[in-house]
């Protein structure tokens, strides 16, 4: 059997960047870890940090392990279809990869939609701590693993994300039409003023 590709995508959002995270995933030690885990590609979307990130990558080119490709890019028009799709297993050519992301909701929703293991790294330096709150929620619901922006933590988190993925697969068979039917959320198309009121009444009698 041919050697399977395995992709790791790191994404920090388009506008503000996330220097600490970009720095850590540009550590040769992190690359060695990925290589040992069978990853063949690390792609880092680093937004405004692209300048120094590409310079650092160029200066460390001889430290990139054999069999691993490391690339940095600023942003892409459609992160989901252009990049995330590469992290998805594809019979005969790719193993399931992983997405490492700041806790931006757009990225999280995209990764969920594609069906990928996710490691979220909240950007603690942002003023409002919405990202930390989101990260906590994702971890609690079992949608993602959280990590700090340190490559050692990231390595542990990538291991855990693999395990969580296997676990979720057995809980939510990936090929059902309604993977989250059990979540019990209302359906948009069925929301009418009267029916929502009825729903409320029903809930009240349940309480």
């Amino acid at each position, binding site marked *: 059997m041919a050697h399977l590709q395995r992709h790791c995508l790191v994404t920090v959002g388009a506008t503000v960047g996330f220097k600490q995270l970009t720095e850590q995933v540009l550590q040769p030690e992190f690359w060695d870890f990925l290589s040992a885990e069978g990853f063949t590609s690390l792609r880092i979307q680093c937004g405004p940090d692209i300048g120094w990130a590409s310079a650092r990558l160029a200066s460390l080119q001889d430290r990139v392990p054999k069999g691993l490709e490391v690339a940095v890019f600023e942003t892409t028009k*459609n992160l989901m279809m252009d990049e995330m799709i590469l992290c998805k297993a*594809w019979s005969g050519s790719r193993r399931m990869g992983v997405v490492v992301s700041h806790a931006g909701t757009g990225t999280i929703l995209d990764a969920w*939609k594609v069906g990928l293991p996710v490691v979220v790294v909240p950007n603690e330096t942002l003023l409002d701590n919405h990202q930390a709150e989101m990260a906590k929620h994702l971890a609690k619901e079992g949608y993602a693993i959280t990590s700090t922006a340190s490559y050692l933590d990231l390595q542990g988190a990538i291991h855990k994300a693999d395990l969580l993925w296997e676990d979720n697969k057995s809980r939510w068979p990936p090929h059902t039409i309604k993977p*989250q039917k059990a979540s019990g959320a209302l*359906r*948009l198309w069925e*929301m009418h*003023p009267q029916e*929502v009121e009825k729903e409320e009444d029903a809930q009240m009698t349940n309480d």
Partner: protein
Amino acid sequence: MDYTLFVLGSGGHTKEMLMMMDDGTCAFANTHRRYLISSGDSMSEHHLADYESRLQALCATRGTSPGTHDKRTVTRARRVHQPLWSTPLTALLSIIDIFPALLTPPDNEVGRALRYPGRVFSNGPATAFFVALAVHLLKMGYVIPESCCKVIYIESWARISTLSLTGKLLLYTGIADVFVTQHQEVATRYGVQNAGEIVFNSRRLDDLEPSPAKC
């Protein structure tokens, strides 16, 4: 027959709205969807085109009708980082565009029969509030009947513990007919209904036929 208006707020909000819509529902015979998009929001345009083409594909495999749709562009009520003081000005421009979008029926059978949308779905940001306000004003002036244009506001999935500014405005003015959040914590804090994580009703890539995954 059914005619529904969707306010597509901005990249992130639009993504959520379309995920909530893309729940596998595909029986849309005699229904019309109208989308309100803010000027210059190419991201929403792109996501919308994506949604509609996935819906067409689903309907084709199921042998159902996707119904009809059109879109209207309105001036954006408030750009990100725009100073709050200047918001009333752009909001005024925005609301001027919103009236014809609400009042001009779709140019098809559904539009001729129904004239006005039955439901107006929105999930933020600011434009959502101004659409709700426009509906309210039109009803106050007896321009449109009370029974149409029911405003259904779904707070963004990103809001776990507090409401967005738009959410607060709609809650305190009481001009939304339905107001729900997607997390229990924020629902409890403001005493509103939690509808659950509606975004996760969305189909996933594996559910799509044919699979768009490339080698």
